[in-house]
């Protein structure tokens, strides 16, 4: 299992635990002291990311699209921070 964390400058902390299969996400868990509204969207976001390719730009687009679709609000971190942290976790697991 891969793990990574990012402290966003002037923002919050994101931690990712990742199980990957090849270059794809099998399971991802995003934790940290950021804000996402509505909060329960985090479970849907993690489900949505399942099967996605471990590519930073593609993941950032996926998170952005998810937020837009659900009219969610992310505070203290940006979609790109989630993406970056997921990719880092993927690299850490080798």
């Amino acid at each position: 299992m891969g793990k990574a964390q990012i402290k966003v400058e002037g923002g919050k902390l994101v931690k990712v635990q990742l199980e990957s299969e090849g270059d794809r996400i099998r399971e991802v868990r995003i934790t940290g002291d950021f804000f996402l509204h509505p909060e329960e969207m985090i479970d849907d976001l993690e489900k949505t990311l399942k099967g996605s390719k471990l590519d930073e730009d593609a993941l950032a687009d996926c998170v952005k699209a998810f937020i837009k679709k659900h009219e969610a609000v992310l505070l203290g971190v940006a979609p790109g921070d989630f993406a970056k942290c997921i990719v880092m976790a993927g690299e850490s697991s080798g």
Partner: protein
Amino acid sequence: MDTGLHDAFYNMALDEAIAVARSRSLVPDTLRFFRWEPSAVSIGYFQGMDEEVDTNACDKRGIGYVRRRTGGGAVYHDRDGELTYSMFLIQSHRLVSADFQESYGTLCSGIVNGLRLLGVQAEFKPINDIVVGGRKVSGNAQTRGLNVVHQHGTILLKVDPMLMFAVLKVPNEKIRDKMIKSVEERVTSLRAVLGRDVGFDELKSALLRGFEASFGIRLAPGVLTEFEAQKAEELKAEKYSRREWNYRR
């Protein structure tokens, strides 16, 4: 209203109960003060309990731990060192903006104002902190649902970083001392700023005046309704005291 001293599960359950009551128009917009007995750690909605809290150390010391309904970080709520507040506003309230960051600033201005009445040069620091001379004295967190905006937060009267890190997880023991030092540099308390102890009643009355002045409102004393009290017990039993909730991440 002041709901006094309660355990962590009840405190968080009551917050949700009041939000539900407000959403059903059973109660007016509400300001609640409360404290924690026993002292407890609360973690943000998105945090991992085992990642953030040394639950064994908590169990040994009789310190509670609970997941909040709001995001943000892990907070140690000392029974005697901290006052917690919650406010509940209907979403259409003139103080509420669709923009979260703006709402934090507006709602925190009541606290900033109250602290200034005590002679503390407090300032709001985005995203969700109140600082004095750059050091955090208050952390705040907001959630919205059922057409209600709920913001809660803490004001530190005195702080003990050693105890704080006895119950919060540190990445490894070697950096525990360093982290304690860094908290001493980043966090302050009313006692440290004013050089004297501030009592809970003194702080509450300053905050009440601060909210009234900042918001242009008049606060009236209130008590919990039967619905709120009952809903709180129900949410404590069925949600906040449960492992499924507290360890869901």
